């Protein structure tokens, strides 16, 4: 009898432990992210938010970004995404998350109080998270994420090495020809030219697209993505050919085609390369690697006067609210608070990243200001409304690597990329 009552009490205690939390207990928001350099700043902001509202926010860091991406996908498949998360994938994958019902449309919240929240952001930062009317992804129009910072990707130069080469450290090259001439000087001085994460391929895509916009304009680039202009078009061949010119001039650092961005950042920060092609996040990275690095930023030099040079920029990182979360209203409130002027200014100061809130740009370092000024000329594939096939992007990027290592000609690569494009278009049509 004694044993039976003990077992009964044990079962009751177990069931009590398994029951749902009591109503009125403190809400805890879970946020998943991949930003190693921002974890301590996020934790500080979470502590401030808890003091102000009593709501606890857990920032859970999963790095590197590849592992994070896998975790988010697995969680989406298992229907256990956290209250707030980010997506690092392409716009087409972002669209799949939305269509699967994982992401809350923030438009109604953005529109409250005469669009008070929406107006705080750089429009280009919001555009990355937006699906417009009649978008090619078949997603209901709306804004599905809140940007927390913005970025632009530009060229950087080491002012001390410029002086060593007999160049004016206040005047970075303005034209592509000037850039190639500097490449010859770099080669003669046995220095390393430009470093970048071109082993990770997406940065090659970014560099090539800058020049595609410059050579043929936005309309033709987007027509190519839609399949209306072939990659064998002479303008695209010129884009491929500029990589050969860069390689031949000595502008590209040795080993660039297998270099990951972290290595490139180390080389540039340690004064081992004259140029770098990197995003605005590099300000924080270089500061931690070499606070005395004397460098400046500039737009990639124009190769043509036909069209404006457009660099990649817009939202760096964004947070989305899980549409299936029971805390979604609290999560939206938290995102509003996180992207408000004071918190954004703190994040910019603590992490040297460009804030997504345009009211928080005061007091940023001069080099970061150079990056923010370029925001006006920026573009991003996520805002184009159409996405290139992944297989085409891969063939495009790997083809450029082949040109750099002298294995293929620009014409050969153009033909190969077009062949893949036609295959993918046929596959899409067959669906």
């Amino acid at each position, binding site marked *: 009898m004694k044993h039976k009552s003990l077992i009964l009490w044990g079962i009751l205690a177990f069931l009590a432990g398994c029951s749902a939390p009591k109503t009125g207990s403190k809400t805890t928001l879970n946020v998943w992210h991949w930003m190693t350099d921002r974890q301590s700043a996020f934790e500080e902001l979470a502590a401030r938010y808890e003091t102000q509202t009593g709501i606890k926010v857990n920032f859970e860091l999963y790095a590197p970004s*590849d592992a994070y*991406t*896998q975790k988010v*996908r697995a969680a*989406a*498949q298992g229907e256990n995404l956290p209250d707030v998360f980010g997506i690092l*994938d*392409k716009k*087409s*994958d972002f669209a*799949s*998350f939305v*269509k*699967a019902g994982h992401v809350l449309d923030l438009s109604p919240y953005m529109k409250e109080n005469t669009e008070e929240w929406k107006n705080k952001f750089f429009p280009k930062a919001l555009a990355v998270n937006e699906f417009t009317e009649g978008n090619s992804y078949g997603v209901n129009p709306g804004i599905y994420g809140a940007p927390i910072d913005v970025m632009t990707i530009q060229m950087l130069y080491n002012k001390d090495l410029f002086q060593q080469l007999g160049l004016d450290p206040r005047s970075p090259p303005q034209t592509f020809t000037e850039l190639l001439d500097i490449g010859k000087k770099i080669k003669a001085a046995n220095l*390393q030219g430009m470093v970048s994460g071109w*082993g*990770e*391929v997406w940065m090659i895509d970014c560099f090539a697209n800058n020049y595609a916009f410059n050579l043929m304009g936005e309309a033709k680039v987007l027509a190519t993505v839609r399949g209306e202009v072939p990659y064998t078009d002479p303008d695209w061949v010129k884009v491929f050919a500029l990589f050969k010119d860069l390689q031949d001039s000595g502008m590209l*650092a*040795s*080993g*660039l*085609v*297998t*270099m*990951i961005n972290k290595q490139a950042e180390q*080389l540039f920060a340690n004064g*081992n390369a004259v140029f770098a092609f990197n995003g605005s996040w590099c300000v924080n990275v270089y500061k931690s690697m070499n606070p005395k690095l004397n460098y400046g930023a500039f737009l990639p030099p124009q190769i043509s006067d036909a069209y404006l040079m457009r660099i990649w920029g817009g939202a760096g990182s964004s947070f989305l609210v899980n549409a299936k979360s029971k805390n979604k209203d609290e999560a939206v409130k938290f995102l509003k608070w996180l992207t408000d002027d004071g918190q954004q200014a703190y994040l910019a100061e603590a992490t040297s990243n460009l804030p997504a809130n345009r009211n928080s740009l005061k007091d940023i370092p001069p080099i970061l200001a150079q990056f923010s000024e370029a925001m006006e000329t920026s573009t991003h594939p996520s805002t184009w409304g159409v996405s290139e096939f*992944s*297989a085409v992007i*891969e063939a495009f990027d*790997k*083809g450029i*690597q*082949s040109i*750099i*290592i002298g*294995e293929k000609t620009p014409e050969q690569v153009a033909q190969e990329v077009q062949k893949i494009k036609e*295959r993918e278009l046929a596959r899409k049509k067959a*669906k």
Partner: protein
Amino acid sequence: MKIKSTLENYLFVLPAVTIFTVFYIIPFVWVFQLGLTDWDGILPTKQFVGITNFKEILFQDPIWWQSMLNAGYITLIALTFQNALAFLLAWACDREIRMKNWFKVIFFIPPVLSEVVVGLVWQWILNGNYGLLNHWLVRLGLSNLAHNWLSDPKTALTTVAIIHSWKGFGWGFLIFLAGLQTIPRELYEAAHVDGANAWHSFRKITMPLMVPVIVLVAILTVLGTMQAFVLIIAMTGGGPAYHTQVPVLRILASMRGSSRFGYACAQGITFGVVLIIISFIQYRFSKRAKA
């Protein structure tokens, strides 16, 4: 009574069967099922496409077959260079040499190191700009040999294969050593009395008795090397261009880069079939060698 006894027996193997079914059979069936769809890994809908993915792999994906050839080349280096080195070192350590226990420990260090760490350290050593290897080549007056080992398409794959062999030879060494130690010493003593020299003993005693061990190491080497990818990601990321791409990297590229989970599953199945065929051929060869 007999039924009870049979049920009892089944009960004993039930946990193992359950674990095997849940963690091997069911995932395998799912992977095969997904290989017949065009699932993107996110949407809940999976469109059935039949054997389209398999047809694309077989007839329209030359990069996949190039990656297979690359893996084959790395495997060939591992089978020859890595296993010959492992066998020679095991043979040396099996003899009465000084400090042999110390050597055993040293030779087993590379396999226990993390592949990412090994990849990054070797990438640093082989770096064309500031790498140790080039530094020493220049200091030794061999500056014409100094270049970017991992970015040059002529040397990238071979370099990766050699580093993979360096990383993996310790396993073969250990298995060969265990095999050599099972050979009765009396056989060597008898051969010595009969006038056999070291080469004769090696050819007539060591080699025949080591055939099963050599076959085992060869099968493990092929299966392990064909599936290598961590070291390659850390060293070259599969580049330059497609020169160090291997099948597992292609599967990852389909899953993560292209969001084609269905296609990635079909690649996984195809790759598995190729590995089974290779293992079967090796098994047939080993049977013939034993005979």
